[in-house]
C-alpha cells in the first residue's frame, strides 16, 4: 500500500463518521464480555434497528474502557456519555435517550478522577476503536508513524527517537529500549528477528491482554517499526494460549495488515519487507524470561540458559533477536509520530512517559489505567482507584507479581517509577497493582507467591528448584504456627542464597515477596512463630501448635 492509499482509508473513515456522528460503543474486552456485554450489544443493535436508526447510529464493539468493575460499559458518542452496569434490558432506554437527556440511572461520570487523572498513550485508542477493523485504527492516525519511519527516516534516526524518548522496557526490568534496539541493529547477521513477549504471566496483571484485545494494530505497527530499525524481516508474537480473545484479534489484525500491504513485501511502497507470526505459549511463567521464551518458540522446554550471549547477539535460531513486551511496542507508534522529546516530557528524570497498571484487589475502581510515571501511590490508589472499599484500612500494595514485593503505607507518597519502587524493595514489574487491606495476612501472601515460584520453577538450576521448595515448606510451617525462630533464620539464609545463585530472573527474584514482607511486616511473622497466632485471622494455626 502506498502512503496515499493509507491516508485515503483514513479520509474515507472520517467521512463515514461525519455522515453518522451518533454511535454507540460497547466494551467488548474480556472483562465486560464476562459480564455479558455481548448480550448488551445484541439488544442495542435490535433497539437501534427497531427505531429505524440502523444507518445513522451504528453499534460498535470496542476495546477496554478501563473501569472493568462497573462493566458492562456503553458509551454514547459523540457526547461521550458513559453508562455502567448496563443490562440487555436497558437497551431501549439508552437508544431513546440519544435524542434527549442521558439515562441518569445508568450514567457514570466522566469527571471521576479515575478518568480525569489518566493520560492515554498506549491506551489512546482503547475503548474508542473497533479492534477488529484496521480502518478504525488508521482513522486514529494509525500507521502514520510507520509510514513516516519508512519514508522519511533512516533506521538510525528511528532508534535515535526511541533513545531520546527515554522509554524503558515495560516488561519489568526497565532496560532502556533505545539501547536494546541499537545493540541488535549493530549486530552483523543476514537474519534477525523481532519478538513480542505477550506471555503476560504475573498473576494479577492484565495490561498486555487489554492492549492486544483493544488495539492490536498498534502492537503490530510497533513491531514493524522495530523490524525496520534493527534490520529484521520477521517477527513473532509469543502470546499466552490462555488469552483466546487476544489471539483471535491478533489473527484478524495480522490478516488485515497483510491484506492492506502493511505486512509482507514493499511496505508503504518501499523496499522494506516484514512478516509477523503468532506462537502460542502453553502455560509456563518462566517463558517470560527471554532465553526461555526463545527455547519455547523453537519448540522446546522453556528453560532459560546462562547469558551471555544475550539474545541481542544470539537469540532465536541463533540469530540476533530483539525482544520487547507488548506495552513497549505499543508505545512506539506515538513516539515516532510525535517525537522522542514529546514522550520524554512526561514522567520523571529516569522513568519517562506513561505506564499502564492493572488496578485490582481491595480497591473500589478496579480496572486498567494509564498514568504518567512519577504519580504517587497515594494518588493512584486513593484518587484514581477510589480507595479501599467497605471502610477497611489500607495495608499494602503488591507490585511486580512474584518477582516484586509488598509496599506498606509509609511509602504511599513515593512516586511510582523504576528506581523508587526498587528502593522500597519491590519492582515496577509489568504493571500489576494488587491492593490489600487489613484482612490480608502477609505471611500468607508470601506463601502464596512462593508456591507460585515453586511450581513455575523450570527445575534446571538447583537453588531455584530445591530452594523454592524448602522456602515454601518453611513458610507453610510458619503460617501453621509450627515454626521456631531457627526456621526464620533458615528462611532468610535461603532467600539470600537463592537470590544470588539462581540461573535466571525467576529464581533471582523469587525471594522478593518474602524479603519485602519480612522487612515491613516482620511483626506478623513473629506473631505466627512466637504467639502461634495469625493477626489477620487468615492462617489456620494447627491445634497441636497451641497445646
Amino acid at each position, binding site marked *: 500500500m502506498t502512503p496515499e492509499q493509507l491516508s485515503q482509508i483514513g479520509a474515507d473513515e472520517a467521512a463515514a463518521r461525519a455522515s453518522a456522528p451518533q454511535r454507540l460503543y460497547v466494551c467488548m474486552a474480556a472483562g465486560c464480555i464476562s459480564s455479558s456485554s455481548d448480550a448488551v450489544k445484541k439488544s442495542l443493535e435490535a433497539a437501534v434497528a427497531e427505531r429505524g436508526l440502523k444507518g445513522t447510529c451504528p453499534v460498535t464493539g470496542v476495546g477496554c474502557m478501563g473501569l472493568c468493575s462497573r462493566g458492562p460499559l456503553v458509551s454514547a458518542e459523540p457526547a461521550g456519555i458513559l453508562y455502567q452496569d448496563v443490562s440487555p434490558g436497558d437497551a431501549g432506554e439508552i437508544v431513546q435517550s440519544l435524542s434527549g437527556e442521558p439515562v441518569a440511572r445508568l450514567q457514570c461520570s466522566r469527571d471521576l478522577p479515575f478518568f480525569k487523572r489518566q493520560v492515554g498513550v498506549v491506551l489512546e485508542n482503547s475503548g474508542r476503536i473497533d479492534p477488529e477493523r484496521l480502518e478504525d485504527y488508521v482513522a486514529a492516525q494509525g500507521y502514520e508513524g510507520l509510514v513516516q519511519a519508512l519514508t522519511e527516516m533512516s533506521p538510525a534516526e528511528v532508534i535515535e527517537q526511541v533513545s531520546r524518548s527515554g522509554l524503558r522496557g515495560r516488561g519489568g526490568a526497565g532496560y532502556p529500549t533505545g539501547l536494546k534496539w541499537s545493540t541488535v541493529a549493530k549486530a552483523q547477521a543476514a537474519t534477525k528477528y523481532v519478538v513480542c513477549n505477550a506471555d503476560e504471566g504475573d498473576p494479577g496483571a492484565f495490561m498486555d491482554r487489554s492492549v492486544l484485545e483493544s488495539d492490536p494494530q498498534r502492537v503490530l505497527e510497533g513491531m514493524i517499526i522495530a523490524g525496520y530499525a534493527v534490520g529484521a524481516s520477521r517477527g513473532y508474537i509469543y502470546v499466552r494460549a490462555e488469552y483466546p480473545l487476544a489471539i483471535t484479534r491478533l489473527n484478524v489484525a495480522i490478516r488485515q495488515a497483510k491484506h492492506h500491504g502493511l505486512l509482507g513485501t514493499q511496505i508503504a511502497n518501499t523496499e522494506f519487507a516484514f512478516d509477523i507470526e503468532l506462537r502460542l505459549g502453553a502455560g509456563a511463567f518462566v517463558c517470560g524470561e527471554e532465553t526461555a521464551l526463545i527455547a519455547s518458540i523453537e519448540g522446546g522446554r522453556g528453560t532459560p540458559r546462562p547469558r551471555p550471549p544475550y539474545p541481542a547477539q544470539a537469540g532465536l535460531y541463533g540469530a540476533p533477536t530483539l525482544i520487547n513486551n507488548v506495552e513497549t511496542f505499543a508505545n512506539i507508534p506515538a513516539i515516532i509520530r510525535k517525537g522522542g522529546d514529546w514522550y520524554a516530557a512526561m514522567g520523571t528524570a529516569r522513568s519517562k512517559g506513561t505506564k499502564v497498571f492493572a488496578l485490582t484487589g481491595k480497591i473500589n475502581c478496579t480496572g486498567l489505567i494509564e498514568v504518567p510515571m512519577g504519580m504517587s501511590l497515594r494518588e493512584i490508589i486513593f484518587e484514581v482507584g477510589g480507595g479501599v472499599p467497605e471502610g477497611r484500612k489500607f495495608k499494602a500494595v503488591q507490585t511486580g507479581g512474584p518477582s516484586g514485593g509488598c509496599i506498606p503505607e509509609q511509602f504511599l507518597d513515593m512516586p511510582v517509577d523504576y528506581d523508587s519502587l526498587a528502593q522500597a524493595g519491590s519492582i515496577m514489574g509489568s504493571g500489576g497493582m494488587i491492593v490489600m487491606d487489613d484482612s490480608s495476612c502477609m505471611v500468607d501472601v508470601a506463601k502464596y507467591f512462593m508456591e507460585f515460584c515453586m511450581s513455575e520453577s523450570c527445575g534446571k538450576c538447583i*537453588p531455584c528448584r530445591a530452594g523454592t*521448595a524448602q522456602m515454601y515448606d518453611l513458610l507453610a510451617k510458619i503460617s501453621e504456627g509450627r515454626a521456631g525462630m531457627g526456621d526464620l533464620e533458615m528462611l532468610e539464609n535461603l532467600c539470600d542464597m537463592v537470590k544470588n545463585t539462581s540461573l535466571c530472573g525467576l529464581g533471582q527474584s523469587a525471594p522478593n515477596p518474602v524479603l519485602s514482607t519480612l522487612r515491613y511486616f516482620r511483626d506478623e511473622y513473629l506473631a505466627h512463630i512466637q504467639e502461634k497466632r495469625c493477626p489477620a485471622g487468615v492462617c489456620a494455626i494447627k491445634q497441636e501448635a497451641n497445646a
Partner: protein
Amino acid sequence: MNPAAPDVKTLRIDGVDVSARADQTVLEAAREKGLSIPTLCHLDGLSDVGACRLCLVEVKGTSKLMPACVTRVEEGMEVTTQSDRLLKYRRMILELLFAERNHVCSVCVANGHCDLQWLGQAHGLTHVQFPYRYPKLSVDASHMRFAVDHNRCILCTRCVRVCDEVEGAHTWDVMGRGIESSVITDLQQPWGESDTCTSCGKCVQVCPTGALFEKGRARSVVKDRDFLPYLAMMREGKR
C-alpha cells in the same frame, strides 16, 4: 607470554596470573593452572548448561556471581574462586541436593564413587540443615544391564547430554518441571522397553551419583571412571 597474540587473554584467578585462549572458559583456564573449582553438571566433552551453580565465582567489577563453566575469559579479569560467601553458598547448594531426594551413602551402590559424596566431604559437610524431603520415587530395573534409581538423581542432565550429543540416541530427557522434574527414557516408558536405547552404557558412566548403575556388579566397579577422559577426547576429535 606473548601480548601480541590477540587470541590470548591474561587474567588473575585467586591472585595467580593465568593466560588462556580467548575461547576458553574461566573453569578451563583455572583447571589448566591446577586451581580447583567444584562442578557437578559440567563434564569435559559435553555441552555446558550452567545448572548446578557450584562453579559460581566472583568477578571483580560485577556484583553478579558468574558460572565459571560458561564464562569466557577476558583480558584483565580478576576472578575469586574461594571466598567465605562462595563457600557458604556451595555448602548450601550441596545441602539442598542432599535434602531433595534420598542420598543415604551407606546403602548406595555408588558409595565411594559418588561426585556428590566427594563434594560433600570436600566442603566439610557433616550435617544437612534442611529437612529431608524424601519423596518416594521409583526404581526402574527393567533394562537388561542397567537400572535407574530416581531417588539418587540430582538432575544434572549429564545422561541426557551424553545420550544426545555423543551416542546420538536421545533416549533420555527431562519431564515435568521444578521440584517435580525427573529424567525419562522415551515416552516415560520402562527403560527396558525403549526402542531408542542402544545399551551403550555411557549414561551410566557419566552419572555422578548412584542414580544410574550397572546391575549385578560388585560395588567397587559399578562406575567405570576410566571412561571419562576418553569422552572428552572423542568430542575433541569430532569438533
